[in-house]
């Protein structure tokens, strides 16, 4: 399903963590991330503490372990490339472990929050944090329509593919760019209709 494909866990399971207020979760997450980023590599105690807190949160939030492992795997290219690149610096080799640990902790934190909090609640917190209204509207509309457009793109791509008989790369690139171009045209037309729908219900 499209949700797994994008890698986001959509069906929010009801749990202790999901019932906590969004502002609280975001605040705690921010504190954890800031603390982790600022902590010196030698602060093993802090890292251990964060790790325990996360294990706790994952358990309470009833998040599936396989899903978490898959999402953490996203991070590995970065960590590997930094490790590779730092291999050239004999003195800095130790620090990549700290980087790996920090980024894993921070990533897990945000995964726990984003998978136990509906996005609209997160958006409400951002609004309360005085993020400008136009940006909030844009984010809300993007969130609402991104799945619609992703599915539309997939349908168009499949329809195109069913009529593409050349296997050359050039033909495929042409076909795909036509699909993407058409996607923008449709998005643009849809935006106009959404504007009409908003006006029809009194938006000024």
């Amino acid at each position, binding site marked *: 399903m499209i949700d797994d494909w994008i890698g986001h866990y959509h069906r929010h399971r009801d749990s202790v963590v999901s019932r906590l207020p969004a502002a609280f979760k975001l605040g705690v997450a921010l504190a954890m991330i800031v603390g982790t980023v600022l902590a010196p590599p030698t602060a093993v105690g802090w890292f251990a503490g964060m790790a325990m807190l996360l294990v706790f949160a994952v358990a309470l939030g009833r998040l599936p372990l396989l899903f978490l492992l898959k999402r953490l795997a996203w991070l590995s290219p970065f960590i590997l490339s930094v490790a590779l690149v730092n291999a050239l610096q004999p003195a800095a080799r130790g620090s990549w472990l700290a980087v790996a640990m920090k980024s894993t902790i921070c990533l897990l934190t945000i995964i726990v929050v984003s998978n136990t909090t509906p996005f609209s609640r997160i958006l409400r917190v951002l609004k309360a944090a005085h993020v400008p209204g136009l940006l909030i509207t844009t984010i809300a509309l993007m969130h609402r329509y991104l799945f619609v457009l992703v599915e539309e793109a997939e349908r168009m791509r499949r329809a195109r593919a069913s009529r593409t008989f050349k296997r050359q790369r050039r033909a495929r690139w042409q076909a795909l760019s036509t699909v993407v171009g058409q996607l923008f045209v449709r998005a643009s037309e849809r935006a106009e209709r*959404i504007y009409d729908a908003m006006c029809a*219900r009194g938006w000024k």
Partner: protein
Amino acid sequence: MNAAIQVTNLSYRYHDGTEALRAVSFPVAPGECVGLLGPNGSGKSTLLLHLNGLLPEKLGWNGAVQILGQPISPDNIETVRRQVGFVFQDPDDQLFCPSVEEDVAFGPQQLGLSETEVNARVQKALAQAGLAGFGHRATHHLSHGEKRRACLAGVLACEPSVLVLDEPTSDLDPRGRREFKALLRGIAATKLIATHDLELVVELCSRAIVLDRGAVVADGPVTDLLNNEELMLAHGLERPHILRHHHPH
């Protein structure tokens, strides 16, 4: 008694010059349910967009459209939009908020109502549309039928006296169609329904208007019009089965 909708000699051209509507005129009495029929490209959607002041874009009217006795003008456009509830063809265009609750609340919020009043209207509209308890659901995850009902709820929350619907039952499965039909039957407002669903028109509407290439070619009682096989076929339609075979329902 003022007509709920009065259209007089409405003409409209697209940007590229093609005529979309040619001297369209018809009244709709309060409480009436009128079906707007016609082949694809006949101008049904364009006509409907005029009833809410969404067309023409540059608010340059000649009084061709009157809602509840008042011609649509830049001054009363907001009142008109409150009085005329528009249900769009693609529910995804209309449900632009992330959750059902937020979307249904959009209209009342734009009206400037208090939070308690907004909540009351939302719950009432959801109940009317058969979506009680759906408030927290994400709009993207609704089924097509649920989306259509959520659109209707969003419009009902504004408590309009006139309902304009553009192809409300297209893409619905038979059960969804039956449920939507039952919903519409229960709503007392004046209704103008543009549709290809001829059986819906027979079951709900008392009167039908046939549009072809931007002009009104027929306007009269539903059974008379739809039984007229010649007329139907001449304008890209047909005599619906429900009239051909005398079924009890």
